[in-house]
């Protein structure tokens, strides 16, 4: 199987803080890969190294068969990045944000591309309003839409659903699945086990600067003691109740 990302022995320190202590993993082309870890585990540092924003102290990183240290321009051609904070321009409208990114990617029909993505991310109505009037969920959707401009083969999403309401969260998940079905590789970081479970073919757990577990969900589950069977009354989670009510309303 062809690899979209290959990281080998990456180390990175900030002053005295040794954040990454030799990180090695591979991501297959066209798959969804989740990097799971608690706050401060070094997930964002890994994303920044793969997106050519940070230079590692040691080790190699290959994205779409280009070395991030040697061919950063080719890597940037191959990727799109959605960082942790919504990197949108507040003073421009949603449409202008998308047109700007399409122009910077030197695409031939920026207005059509913007229109399509606005529709796809349910932002058509708010398209010509300034982003400063958007809600947190709308901002995040625009942010992710901006990363979809140009259809980069490798998509990085750094905690894409942190701070989103359940509906937006599901919408983002659907987008991620659609992209992977089209053959794009999706690399996402998350703090939530259920998100990794929902989406990812392969999961890696980053802890104290090292990958401590790596594999498909079934393999990871084997690492834990076998499940005991207990009978517990099924309680609906608040999220399930919320979604059920909202779906009912929309159906009416």
């Amino acid at each position, binding site marked *: 199987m062809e690899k979209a990302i290959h990281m080998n022995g990456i180390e990175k320190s900030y002053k005295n803080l040794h954040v990454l202590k030799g990180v090695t993993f591979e991501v297959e082309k066209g798959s969804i890969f989740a990097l799971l870890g608690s706050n401060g585990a070094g997930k964002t540092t890994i994303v*920044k190294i793969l*997106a*050519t*924003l940070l230079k590692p102290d040691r080790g190699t990183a290959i994205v779409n068969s280009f070395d991030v240290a040697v*061919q950063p*321009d080719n890597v*940037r*051609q191959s*990727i*799109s*990045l959605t*960082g*942790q*904070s*919504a*990197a*949108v*321009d*507040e*003073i*421009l409208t949603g449409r*202008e944000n998308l047109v*700007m*990114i399409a*122009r*910077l*990617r*030197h695409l031939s029909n920026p207005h059509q591309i913007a229109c399509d993505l606005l529709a796809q991310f349910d932002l058509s109505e708010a398209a010509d309003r*300034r982003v400063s009037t958007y809600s947190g969920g709308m901002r995040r959707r625009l942010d992710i839409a*901006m990363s979809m401009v140009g259809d980069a083969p490798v998509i990085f999403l750094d905690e894409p659903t942190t701070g989103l309401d359940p509906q937006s969260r599901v919408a983002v998940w659907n987008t991620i699945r659609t992209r992977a079905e089209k053959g794009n590789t999706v690399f996402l970081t998350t703090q939530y086990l259920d998100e990794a479970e929902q989406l990812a073919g392969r999961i890696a757990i980053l802890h104290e600067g090292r990958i401590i577990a790596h594999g498909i969900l079934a393999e990871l589950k084997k690492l834990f003691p076998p499940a005991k069977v207990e009978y517990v009354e099924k309680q609906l989670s608040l999220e399930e109740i919320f979604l059920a009510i909202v779906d009912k309303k929309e159906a009416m």
Partner: protein
Amino acid sequence: MNTLHHHYYFSDMGVMLGRSMRHIFRSMDTIITVTITPIAMLLLFVYVFGGAIQAGTDTYVNYILPGILLMAIASGVAYTSYRLFIDVQRGIFERFHSMPIVRSAALWGHVITSLVSNAISVAVIILVAFIIGFRSPGGILSWLAAAGILCLFTLALTWLAVIAGLSAKSVDGAGAFAYPLIFLPFISSAFVPTRTMVTAVRVFAEHQPVTPIVNSLRALLSGQPVGNDIFSALLWCVGILGAAYFFALWIYKKRV
């Protein structure tokens, strides 16, 4: 590797410039501060203080216009550093830097925007000065020379603003560097001749950059010979520009 994107240089810069210009025209307070405040100062000094100040010229507006223009530019670049700070904070710079575009385009977009927006406010202030009686016997060459000096001064201050914008820890900090610059014209030959000041202040006034720049602009616009002032004016501008440019790039390389 750079040749890969070379022919996109101007198109990338154009997109960045268009973006920042939209920012300027959509935040009215920027336009008000950069243009209205110096105009108010101009009116205040001409119609309120001007009668009492014996500056040795027929029309006081001719005398103070250069200093007012420098103040406008100094307050204009505060917004350059503010906009830069916001871009770095919000992660927009990270998005740009992870894209296949000319790396320095994001930074140069802000620099060119600073030049264009300051040129607009300078033009508006000169227009108001004309309406209230400013006249210049200087020819086209003198005006071009004056425009050149203002351009150099703007560039020098803009690169100082880049340093402030990239290294500031808070929004307030990003703009704060401009306050001393805005007040520098008061302790110079901008409003009153330096010979009227007490000795210690006079020594400072005569050895700071604003005095030779103001004197050169005033001489050019009134059709007088510029003398040695033009050399120290150019030396100050080019010196500050060079030092600020290299320091700003050093910080930029460290940050991205």
